[in-house]
């Protein structure tokens, strides 16, 4: 563990990230929000200076970049970037803990908010909230890798540490091209969604901000009542479709666009994901229809809410806190699943559930046939033992972190449903939960310590636990030195 290497890379990432501050400055200037513009300008300059100083103060990247250093860089980058992104929120009047919560929630595409009164903040504020979400959707490192070709080896370690799904999907032999391809797809999908939303009659500003939140599977809307506030069924369908895409594997979508139409539908994870969406939507729609909602509205809200929660977006087309317990139970179950690996969504991901389910079934079969050779397969290929072990360990850690955080939040005064859902929606980067953290409520009333714990949960959850948790091993730090 060489701290100089970490600082150097961190500086490089921060320096590039500083550029994103330019966008809200322009928006603030356009709407005449000069005070906010100064805030963004100051934060942007500070970020740039920190980045440049860090790069200058440390030597260049050695050839023998290490795995642990990669994990440290990625973990630290997300934390530091979240802190820097929180500066404009503090400038506009949020308390530091709430500002960090809000900024981490945006960057990790969670969508949980501490804002109580939306009318206090300007256009640039909400634009910034959406923009960091959009960048976080594909990833800070993915941005870095796409822009900087130089750190070839380091880039590889960083790229996979940021999105350590069980399957490494690479589109091209060169990592930089892969990152570029993903960004192109991401930008293309975003443009398509903005256009579609404009057609449904949504104003440009709202269309852009909501698109940022949709494709990142984030869920921050500039409207206090989320998507429900627009009362626009066509827009709800558009957003449902794009949320569904945001929760599907981007690499596979790219291959579909490049002339491999079967790439998505042949993928077992995508099929399972689609199956979950269809079955859960039907279930929720049925319960809503039973509760006297008109059929079409029940189908629309059922599909919207199921896709929103499963992809960990967290938009609300209706205040589902008011629903009966049956459809809410369906949503609660979905919070533990998440979207596909290689997508913008959070949570444990469909593929991990798929693998663990198969593993369990095969272990059951083994009790009958103790001598049988029973490898876990995915898409006709055997999943190596090492990957399977990592998946099982991930799931166990996920439950452990969930249990610990829930306990802390509950002990600090939240009621049980609030504690459970607040933890799972932050750890899984979903957004709104039930009860006092429901879709029309917020997280501001929680104990400050709870908010810090949940902020960490978002951070750990976005990096899929192991990247961060691996750094907690004392042996790693005992040998730490400057270079």
């Amino acid at each position: 563990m060489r701290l100089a290497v970490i600082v150097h890379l961190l500086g490089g990432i921060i320096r590039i990230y500083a550029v994103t501050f330019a966008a809200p400055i322009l928006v603030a200037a356009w709407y005449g929000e000069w005070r906010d513009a100064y805030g963004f300008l100051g934060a942007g300059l500070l970020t740039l200076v920190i980045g440049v100083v860090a790069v200058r103060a440390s030597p260049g990247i050695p050839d023998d970049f290490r795995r642990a250093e990669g994990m440290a860089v990625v973990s630290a980058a997300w934390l530091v970037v979240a802190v820097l992104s929180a500066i404009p929120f503090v400038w506009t009047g949020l308390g530091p803990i709430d500002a960090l919560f809000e900024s981490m929630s945006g960057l990790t595409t969670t969508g949980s908010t501490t804002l109580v009164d939306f009318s206090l903040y300007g256009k640039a504020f909400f634009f910034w909230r959406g923009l960091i979400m959009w960048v976080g959707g594909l990833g800070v490192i993915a941005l870095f890798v796409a822009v900087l070709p130089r750190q070839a080896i380091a880039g590889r370690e960083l790229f996979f540490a940021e999105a350590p799904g069980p399957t490494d999907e690479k589109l091209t032999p060169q990592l930089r091209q892969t990152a570029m391809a993903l960004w192109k797809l991401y930008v293309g999908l975003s443009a398509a969604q903005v256009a579609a939303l404009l057609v449904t009659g949504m104003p440009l500003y709202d269309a852009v901000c909501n698109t940022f939140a949709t494709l990142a599977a984030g869920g921050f809307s500039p409207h206090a009542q989320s998507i429900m506030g627009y009362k626009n069924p066509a827009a709800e369908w558009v957003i449902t479709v794009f949320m569904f895409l945001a929760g599907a594997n981007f690499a596979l979508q790219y291959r579909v666009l490049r002339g491999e139409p079967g790439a998505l539908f042949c993928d077992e994870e995508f099929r399972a994901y689609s199956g979950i969406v269809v079955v859960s939507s039907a279930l929720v729609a049925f319960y809503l229809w039973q509760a006297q909602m008109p059929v079409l509205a029940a189908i629309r809200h059922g599909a919207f809410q199921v896709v929103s929660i499963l992809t960990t977006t967290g938009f609300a087309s209706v205040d589902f806190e008011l629903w009966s317990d049956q459809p809410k139970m369906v949503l609660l179950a979905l919070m533990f699943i998440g979207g596909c690996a290689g997508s913008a969504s959070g949570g444990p991901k469909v593929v991990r559930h798929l693998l663990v389910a198969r593993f369990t079934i095969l272990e059951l079969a083994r009790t009958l046939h103790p001598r049988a050779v029973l490898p876990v397969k995915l898409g006709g290929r055997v999943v190596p033992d090492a990957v399977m072990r990592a998946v099982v360990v991930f799931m166990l850690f996920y439950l452990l972190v969930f249990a610990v955080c829930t306990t802390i939040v509950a002990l600090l005064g939240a009621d049980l449903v609030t504690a459970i859902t607040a933890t799972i929606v932050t750890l899984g980067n979903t957004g709104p939960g039930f009860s006092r953290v429901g879709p029309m409520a917020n997280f501001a009333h929680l104990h400050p310590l709870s908010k810090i714990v949940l902020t960490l949960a978002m951070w750990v959850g976005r990096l899929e636990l192991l990247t961060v948790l691996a750094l907690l091993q004392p042996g790693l730090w005992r040998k730490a030195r400057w270079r």
Partner: protein
Amino acid sequence: MRLIIVGGGEVGHALARALSPDHDVFVIDHNPAVGDRFASLDVEFLPGSGTSLSVLRKAGVERSQLFVACTGQDEVNVVACALANQIGSPETICLVSREDFLGADGGSALLREHFGIDRVLWPEAQLAADIVRIIEAPGAIDAEEFLDGRVRLLEYRLEERSPLCAGPLATMHLPRGALVVAVKRGDQYMIPRGSSRLLPGDKVFLMGHPEPMRMIQSRLVTGRPARDRQSVTIVGGGDVGLRIAQQLDRSPDIDLRVIESNSARGEMLAATLSRALVLNGDGTDLELLEAEEIGRSDVLVSVIDNDERNLFASLIGRQLGVRKIITRVSKAGSLRLFERVGVDVPLSARGAAVASIVYGVKGGRSRLLAVLEEGQAEILELAVPAGFVSTPLMDLQAPPDSIVGAIRRGDEVIVPHGDDRIEGGDTLIVFTTAASADQVRDFFGPPAD
């Protein structure tokens, strides 16, 4: 005719024995000790490598007419054939045991084009295909296909309750397009007539179009309705076992188990097969076989590369109550022994390869399609000369113990009765005992060329 055989193993020895009485046979093997086995035969044994130019020249490759490479190593066989083809121009036959050289489509065309190999034989693949055919015909002890699958031959042992034993054959009302071509009672073959009666324990050979054969299969022979699900256990996941498993794995009506003792190989099998249950253990481990209820399998296929272990696994299977046992036998001489101790279908991969090579040397206007009952009976394809005068089948002075099972005329395939006619240009599929085979072959006179 001068023949050169590279490789003095099982195949080489059987070939030399069959061909040495009529031809000049040279056998090349790198192991001089092998020469002792050929001492009793009238052949010339040359110690040395089949890929050595000097050894090949010593055997007189440039003057030879047939060159067979049958060592245990595919690469050696291919290179030896290529060299022989460069020096002289014999007909080259190359035996392979792995998929490598034939794997891709047109593999044998590639070998012909670039290495000058006229015929590639892959006995193990043939064996696997034979076994799959037999498994897919439940109850049958042998199953063959001719004319691209348009004619099937099935061999059954009649059981006590079989409706076919109820009366004279003429009263059996066999479905149209199917024929009882032969009956084997004890060691005697007979060609049945309408008045013949079949007895339980007889082996009957039926030939016909696939559809009526399917009807016969379920109804007439076993006297039991056909079961829709079969459970099959394969002992030994080697090349042959894997090929069989891959083909059976596709069929949803077959519950498949593969027992393989090598754990790494077992993992590879489990990765390749999607539905089969792969068990890591010894096929002769009674405890494992009992725990997995192997005795309830419909078919046990034992294809380990070792005759003794195959026999042992088969006998255990029989003891546990498996209904049908198919076993691979390497030493052609052991076939009858295997059958006597209770193996239903002993099959030798190399035996079939040897038979087809020997038959090719004899030549004529006929082709050997299949060898039945360890060589006691044969299925031949016979070309009728163009000038042949149209004759009803019953007026044909056919050799004894032979029968025409199918006629192909243009695109049509006829399963004939006595009043069907044979015309010039027809292709006949003929069942014959080995004793009458020579007569059948020469029935239409010597070959046209």
